[in-house]
């Protein structure tokens, strides 16, 4: 490459060029270029992981002069104390409900929209709106909508009690059941659920808001995935005897969407593990810890109550979940989830 150096303009600072080869210079420039990023990665991403791991074996709290090593006590507590068992239950319930539901709804919506003759764009736009809006704002609106007395949902349900045919339909008495014994009948007689204030309903309500918010994102990814399925494959499948829509889905669409599904499931799972906004704004982990998810537990224990050791242990378990998930995803992607 000496010709490159020779072609440099006369006023080019050749101080280094005299000493170094162009490659040497390039290497040094490269170090300047990566140095800020590397330093920030070390400081902002890697150091905190180490700090959390170390502190999780201690009873550290901010502002106190010293701290003790307490071994694995924090971890032991997490798997024995009922508070933390409720935390793991709430988190896993949320993840195991929101992920499958929002993936199935996302896929279903995408396939329906994709097969429409007209009106595709309007549905796509509407279903994507929750992804754009601040979750905190929409969560608060959902809270109003689900307000036990003046919320739109319970008002509408209560109004439905007055309408004869609707009562028959929803209470299931047309199937021969006792209308008063049905869920709807109970609601008419004793009032409809408090939703967020009732521990039997709160986690499901939070899950519902999570699904409401997430499925449009999955739909968009599936729509992109569907456009890349070659139409010839459907013809080929039909020649091979796949006559029903279900057969075509099972033999062509689903396998071809494999890579999209792996990605959608991973990202939805990681996001679901991180649920916080809805819980903090609407239930504060309650009633009776039924919505006490991990991110909220970290916030409440470590940042509000200054139990940093415990918070660090939850952080480590949390990171473990997320990292394992991502590694599984990468492994699947490398193995080509197509045709598997």
């Amino acid at each position, binding site marked *: 490459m000496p010709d490159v150096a020779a072609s440099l303009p006369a006023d080019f600072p050749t101080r280094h060029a005299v000493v170094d080869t162009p490659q040497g210079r390039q290497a040094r420039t490269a170090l*300047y270029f990566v140095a800020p990023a590397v330093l920030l990665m070390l400081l902002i991403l890697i150091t905190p992981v180490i700090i959390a791991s170390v502190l999780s074996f201690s009873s550290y709290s901010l502002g106190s002069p010293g701290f003790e090593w307490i071994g694995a006590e924090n971890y032991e507590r997490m798997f024995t104390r009922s508070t933390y068992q409720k935390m793991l239950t709430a988190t896993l319930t949320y993840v195991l409900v929101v992920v499958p539901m929002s993936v199935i709804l996302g896929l279903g919506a995408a396939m329906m929209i994709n097969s429409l003759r007209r009106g595709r764009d309007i*549905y796509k736009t*509407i279903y994507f709106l929750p992804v*754009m809006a601040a979750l905190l704002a929409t969560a608060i609106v959902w809270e109003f909508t689900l307000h036990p007395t003046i919320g739109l949902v319970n008002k509408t349900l209560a109004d439905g009690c007055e309408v004869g045919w609707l009562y028959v339909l929803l209470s299931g008495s047309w199937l021969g059941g006792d209308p008063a014994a049905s869920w709807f009948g109970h609601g008419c007689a004793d009032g409809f659920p408090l939703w967020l204030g009732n521990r039997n309903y709160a986690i499901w309500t939070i899950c519902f808001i999570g699904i409401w918010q997430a499925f449009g994102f999955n739909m968009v990814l599936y729509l992109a995935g569907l456009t890349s399925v070659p139409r010839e494959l459907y*013809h080929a499948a039909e020649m091979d005897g796949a006559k029903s829509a279900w057969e075509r889905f099972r033999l062509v669409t689903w396998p071809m969407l494999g890579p999209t599904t792996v990605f959608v499931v991973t990202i939805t799972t990681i996001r679901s593990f991180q649920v916080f906004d809805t819980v903090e704004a609407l239930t504060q982990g309650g009633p009776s810890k039924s919505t006490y998810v991990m991110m909220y537990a970290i*916030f409440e224990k470590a940042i509000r109550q200054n139990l940093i050791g415990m918070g660090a242990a939850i952080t480590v378990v949390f990171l473990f979940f997320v990292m394992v998930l991502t590694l599984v995803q990468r492994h699947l992607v490398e193995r080509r989830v197509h045709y598997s």
Partner: protein
Amino acid sequence: MIGRSSPFFEAAKHAVLVIGALIVILPFYVMLSYSLKSPQEIETNTGGFIGAQAPMVNEYCVKLGNTREDCTETPVVFNYTQAFKQAPLLRYLLNGVIVTVSIFLIQVVVALPCAYALAKLKFWGRDAVFTMVLFCLLIPVHAIALPLYIMLAKVGLTNTYAALVIPWTISVFGIFLMRQFFMTVPDDLIDAGRMDGMSEFAIVWRVMLPTAIPALLAFAIFSVVAHWNDYFWPRVVITGNRDLFTPPLGLREFRGGADGSDWGPMMATATIIVTPLIVAFLMAQRRFIEGITLSGMK
């Protein structure tokens, strides 16, 4: 799908999708509707979508010693003026802009040179740096909020703009994305720049940056949407100092002190916070969907 579905199936699909759309829209409808209605209409659930807009007396205004005539206004005016009067909403919005813009700019300044070096320069340790990027992609910043909070508290940076921005200055995802993009830029373009006597630094900003505008725009949308809407991190590092509240924090605080009569102004606040991104999205849907689903481009 293959073939043409029958008109019956087409209608059935529309029916299902319309019901879905109604559920999706419901909170947006409630938010906008409540932001227009009077407290009585909200409480009794009357007045349809926009309410009767009957003039009402603003009690806050009366308490300040004004006559009742001067304080009579329509509910929509009441709700939206109260949104700005009861809390420094303008300040919150400004904070939101400051924080999201600074985060994006710093992310680009840090990520672009690094991505260029990883894609186009040969140097000792390149594989190690790239491995590090791949490892850091495993760590969501929200997950390590606690140790980050401790670090910031130790250096006395909680309750500052810096605390809101620092954890997001490094976007490993941005580095990864831009590296993949730069790999596709032909070497000839860079060599031509070098022939012209451009420094590597100039090549990054004057050759690579212009070619990367579409990818960068998508990344900008990804970044701005995430940080404008973020509630968790500001909630952790900003405690009490209202001057530093971002829009979601302001809305949350509003809710904390709200009794039924404040629902209108609060929904007006929510509408104001949500509107900029929704409007931008409606105007440039394709770009937004590209940007938000960026992470699908791996």
